[in-house]
């Protein structure tokens, strides 16, 4: 059995009286891609926000590498080897692609409370940034300002920044959103490569991509887990068919 990188138990989040996520328990393993699917409003983004520390859970526990990280702040969780990407592209638009990744890589230093040494001279950080750009297929665009990149390239940059923080666990929130067929294909290829060296939790709407990539699938409806298992089993699950797959697969 591959190493368990992420494990949650009964993760729950209420907004006022409304339960956006309730009682979600799941795991992510090294070298495997665990996809979370479900209709809009199923609580997938809330789930990721709790895993990354952007949102504290109302109850339940999150463990990374066996350590309880429930309630830790986003920056602390990031430093435990968790990298996340956002549904809406969330890069520093005014910076170059390289500087986006350089800053991300700089976060892995013990501290950035260094005041007198030029940041561009941190060779280790520069190398990390270059590697991350290359891994995400952006090595040709290092000098371009992020706002000048195409939508697909910005999505790649989003992943590259995450990689530059050298995470073990990747939390990817709809990396294929808004992409054309060609861009999607290259992103799928990238994810296939990344899963070899990472544990990935993927939230995605593109069912073809999900079934191509996932080693394990969790279906969420109304904040709860409807079914969880191997892709083939999920595809055959009548309940899932009815609740979700049937409608979205016209």
């Amino acid at each position, binding site marked *: 059995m591959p190493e368990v990188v992420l494990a949650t138990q009964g993760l729950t989040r209420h907004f006022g009286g409304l339960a956006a996520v309730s009682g979600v328990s799941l795991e992510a393993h090294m070298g495997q891609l665990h996809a979370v699917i479900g209709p809009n409003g199923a609580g997938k983004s809330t789930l990721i926000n709790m895993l990354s520390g952007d949102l504290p859970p109302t109850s339940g526990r999150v463990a990374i590498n066996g350590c309880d990280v429930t309630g830790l702040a986003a920056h*602390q969780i*990031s430093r435990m080897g968790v990298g996340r990407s956002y549904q809406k592209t*969330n*890069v520093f638009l005014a*910076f170059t692609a390289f500087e986006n990744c350089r800053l991300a890589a700089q*976060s892995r230093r013990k501290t950035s*409370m260094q*005041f007198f040494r*030029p940041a561009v001279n941190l060779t280790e950080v520069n190398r990390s940034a270059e590697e991350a750009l290359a891994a995400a297929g952006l090595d040709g665009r290092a000098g371009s300002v992020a706002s000048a990149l195409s939508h697909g390239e910005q999505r790649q940059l989003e992943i590259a920044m995450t990689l530059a*923080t050298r995470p073990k666990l990747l939390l990817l929130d709809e990396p294929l959103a808004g992409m054309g067929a060609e861009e999607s294909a290259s992103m799928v290829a990238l994810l296939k490569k990344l899963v070899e060296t990472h544990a990935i939790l993927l939230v995605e709407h593109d069912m073809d991509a999900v079934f191509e990539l996932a080693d394990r699938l969790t279906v969420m409806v109304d904040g709860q887990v409807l079914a969880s298992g191997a892709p083939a089993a999920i595809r055959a699950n009548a309940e899932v068919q009815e609740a979700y797959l049937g409608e979205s697969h016209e």
Partner: protein
Amino acid sequence: MTSRANAILLAVAVLGLAATPFFAEKFYVQFFAKLLIMGIFAMSLDLLLGYTGLVSFGHAAFYGASAYTLAILTPQYQAANFWTSFPIAIAVSATLALVIGFFVVRTHGIYFIMVTLAFAQMLFFLFHDTKIAGGNDGIYIDVRPVAKIGDWQPFNLDNFVHVFYLVLVFFVIVYVLLRVILASPFGRVLVGIKANEARMRSLGFPTFRYKLVAFVIAGAIAGVAGYLSSIQFGVVNPEMMGWHLSGAVMMMVILGGMGTLTGPIIGAAVWMLLELGLQGLPKVGSVDLGKHWQLWMGSFIVLASLLLPNGLLGLGASLLRRIGKQRGKPDA
């Protein structure tokens, strides 16, 4: 304008300024010293406003704090020691910034603006309403600090030319220091926080800490400006902590163009020339235009904040672009 072009421009300006005491009258030398002091003050605020995205409306608190420190350290009819009073005054400003920052930096947006102003006004009222250091009249520093090392006195603060050069040296140090800090790993984090704080957190940066340190650095540099101001004018009063000064320095930063470091210096110069010009307006009939200069200044601020979102540097840059475009056009 690139930052290199800025730096070259600034170097020329500094050299030009360094020559002024050789031909200019006392009034102008002192005016330039005051201008440079305001330049230091404005640069310190730019670190927060333009580079970290912290809109502090209480920056005068740290300017005034070091000035009051000198006033309190100066014994009556005697001189304080420059070499001890200067570091102590800066340390007081920095410590105050640390304490106030600890509370205010956890707030965002509009709250930050209000809370910085509220804490600064708290200090203003503390000195204004109580008998500490002369109450609302302020206090004179009768004898300027002495900068003796043993028997040797490298400069004399009673001499306005010496004060001018001291200010000029500090101005250059502060400018270079800020440029170095901004290029450092720390400085890059600040710029990232201004662009998108939440993203910086999810990248693993404990942003509170970085913002707080920026707040302290800016407070300490504001303290340098406050100290220099108090030795130049020999008087310290609550107005040095008041919101009129906080507002004025904010206006200097915006006017010149925030996030450029050079812009705020230009803004400070324009602001002070404007102040001088408006105060010198003549009487027209029974109306004394100069006496009510704040009316014109206020109207100017209203117009400038509507019309100059990127400051004078931004205006200059877009004018240059427009001219460039027209030149580039083929004659049709």
